[in-house]
């Protein structure tokens, strides 16, 4: 038995999280603050994400989820604090960071007069991919998503789910190490949802880091091995679903969410609604 296999066996005895925490973080966010005009949206986020983690990033509307994502993707750069990705400072080395990240935006606008092939080739060239490799990859990815028939059709006739599949392909095209998914399942049918969920866990096994933003608690609960809950610009919970359950003593992520974001009166709202019919 050589030392390598021995070391691996030793490592495998530890729970997954502990192994991960010994590694270098892929994304490090330190005291991240961001305000729009006078309104502070992020009030000091501290976060370390490790390779192979599937991070569920959840929070109510306006909590600062999409702002964090926009900063990570390099769409916003007037923030305070420090964000490093694989040792690169986001403010100084924006381009290498962008090259490592794959972004699947939520129901994004598309130049929908293009065909998926044309659009994805455009994306590939912006990621400096070789044209032949790129074309090959596009064909494979789109047929895997069941869209080889639509490869040369303009996207303006596509349904929301089909557009979403193109977006997913565009985010994975350059084989990035970090994948940021913003509501990736919106508009997809049940079969595609299963495919994507499966894909997420396979990507994570390959050592890819996945940053998963969503409102759909039941999906986040299942796919992510670490959940970050933010509310009003600060992190209010951080841990695996099991850990969160123990902390809160609740059963579902939805309830933990309601409890931590100060919305415990869901029942009362329903009651009040019912009372509207009383004349």
């Amino acid at each position, binding site marked *: 038995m050589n030392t390598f296999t021995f070391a691996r066996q030793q490592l495998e005895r530890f729970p997954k999280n502990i192994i991960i925490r010994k590694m270098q973080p892929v994304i490090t966010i330190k005291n991240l603050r961001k305000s729009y005009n006078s309104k502070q949206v992020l009030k000091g986020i501290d976060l370390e994400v490790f390779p192979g983690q599937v991070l569920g990033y959840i929070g109510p509307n306006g909590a600062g989820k999409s702002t964090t994502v926009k900063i990570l993707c390099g769409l916003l750069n007037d923030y305070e604090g420090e964000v490093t990705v694989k040792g690169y400072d986001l403010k100084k080395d924006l381009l290498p960071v*962008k090259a490592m990240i794959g972004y699947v935006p939520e129901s994004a*606008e598309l130049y929908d*007069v293009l065909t998926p092939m044309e659009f994805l080739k*455009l994306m590939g060239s912006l990621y400096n991919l070789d044209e032949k490799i790129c074309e090959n990859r596009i064909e494979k990815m789109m047929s895997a998503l069941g869209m080889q028939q639509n490869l040369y059709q303009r996207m303006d006739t596509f349904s929301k789910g089909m557009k979403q599949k193109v977006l997913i392909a565009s985010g994975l095209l350059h084989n990035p190490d970090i994948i940021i998914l913003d509501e990736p399942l919106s508009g997809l049918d049940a079969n595609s949802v299963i495919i994507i969920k499966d894909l997420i866990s396979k990507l994570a096994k390959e050592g890819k880091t996945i940053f998963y933003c969503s409102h759909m608690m039941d999906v986040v609960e299942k796919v992510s091995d670490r959940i970050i809950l933010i509310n009003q610009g600060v992190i209010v919970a951080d841990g695996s679903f099991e850990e969160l359950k123990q902390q809160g003593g609740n059963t579902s992520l939805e309830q933990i969410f309601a409890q931590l974001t100060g919305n415990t009166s869901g029942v009362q709202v329903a009651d009040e609604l019912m009372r509207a019919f009383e004349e």
Partner: protein
Amino acid sequence: MNFINRILLRFALLPKKLYSSNGINISHLQSILTAKLIMDDRRPAPMMSTRKQRQKKEVSKATLTTMLISAITGCVFLFCFSLEAVPIAQFTFYFSYFIFMLASTLISDFTSVLIDVRDNYIIAPKPVNDRTVLMARLLHIFVHICKLVVPMLLPGIIYVGIRFGIAGALLLFITGLLTVIFCIFLVNAFYIVILRFTKPEKFKSIISYIQILFAIVLYASFQLLPRLVGQMENFNLHFTKSSWLIVLPSYWFAATWNVLHTLQGSPLEYSAAICGVTLPFLSLWAVIKFLAPSFNRKLSLISNSGESIAASPMRGALENKQQKIKLIERVATMTTKPGSERMGFIFTWYMMARNRDFKMKVYPAIGYILVYIFIIFFNEKKLNIVDIEQQTGTGKMMIITALYFTSFLTLMAVAQLVYSDKYKAAWIYFITPLKTPGNIINGSIKAAIVKFCLPFIFVLGIAGVALMGVDFIPNLLLAASNQVVICYCMVYFGTKDLPFAKKQDIDAKTGNLLRNMFKMILPFLLAIIHYFIYSNIPLIFLSFIVSCIVLWLLTDTVKKISWAEVQTSFTED
């Protein structure tokens, strides 16, 4: 809701007894109509929205704006009465414009305003009976047409009232109504024909092509008509004797007015007048009997096409498309460096050909310019092949005009390149590791030049060489290189942004006046300089070299446009 809508609504709801005896629910009818009219009020007027939209201000008086625009259009029509011709000719022109404007407005309004897909989700599931829905729709169309027609006719009625007396004005009002009925028939027939030949998905782009065509024809007619009438000898005699006029609907209504007003006329005018009175009613009957039922059904097809599912493509079409793609890529390989520049070229090429917004803005302008060139060359009787062959003063002037006028076409396209209604789709530039946006910008300018400038240079080159021989080539080269310089100048001194990444109305800020002046002056300046050195071949060659150096410097700076220089509207929200 403003007072005009309120009055029209009250007017439309007057025959309450008639409605309720026909099984129409008055309160439903009223609330549907009220909602529709309020929505009309908040929809920006089509002519305003293509220009500068107020950015943050909510639209709340769209009805008044629409009516004002109609009234102004009506005033413009009055120019027909200033032509030196017999009244019946003036009225023919007047009615031509009226039919033209009304039909083109209605064609676009029927899909965008009057038939709303959301009715299917909002009204259809509610317990409202079909007759009420139908009546609401008809009344809505009626109110809408009133709002268009009344202000459009009003200036004409006032003018005719002053010139021909009250009876004349009254007759114009009546013939105007007949015209409206006929227009409704035209619009219906148009829809039926178009839908027979095309798929509903293509409908919207066809509508926009037709609007482009209408705009160009309108502009051409404004330019050419007075010249035509002024130049033709014995125009009045020609006009009154031409029996082919009977096929023109506008002539029927003009004849109707004339016959009823003067109570006399030629046999031709009498027969046209009979057409004018009877045919609108005949067409109305045809609309009700034959066209309307299938019309409604087909219209809902168009409206539904917004979310149509992509049909599986045929094999043949697929191969054909791949072939086409290869061709464009070959052009791109010839003109651009690989990487983001080439991608910018290909992307812009596709977008210019397919983006409806871009086409709607650029193609009419191109049409106007072509009309203008046509006027300069053919109408002023300046065109003289000998002048060009001999390269006399006027000949030179015309050659230079032809060479430099086309630069406005390319400029128009280049200026429009950065804009898109889908500017939010520009996220793709920002999340990818794109080092210098200048390369993409450079590629996209090249695409515009290849598409809009090269064909003209090519055509002019062939024509020029055919007429003047190879001597023309140095001048052609200088003009071509100058045109490209002008384009790059515009980009360099204009707002720099990535292609199709800017919101249309963001530029409404001040400080553009100087820039626009510069835009106009630069081509003129270069053209004038070129004119003076035209015959001096060594000087032409020298200027060509200078121009090429300037071009090389300019492309180099454009290529290096950095993120800091790009004025994008993408990150603003």
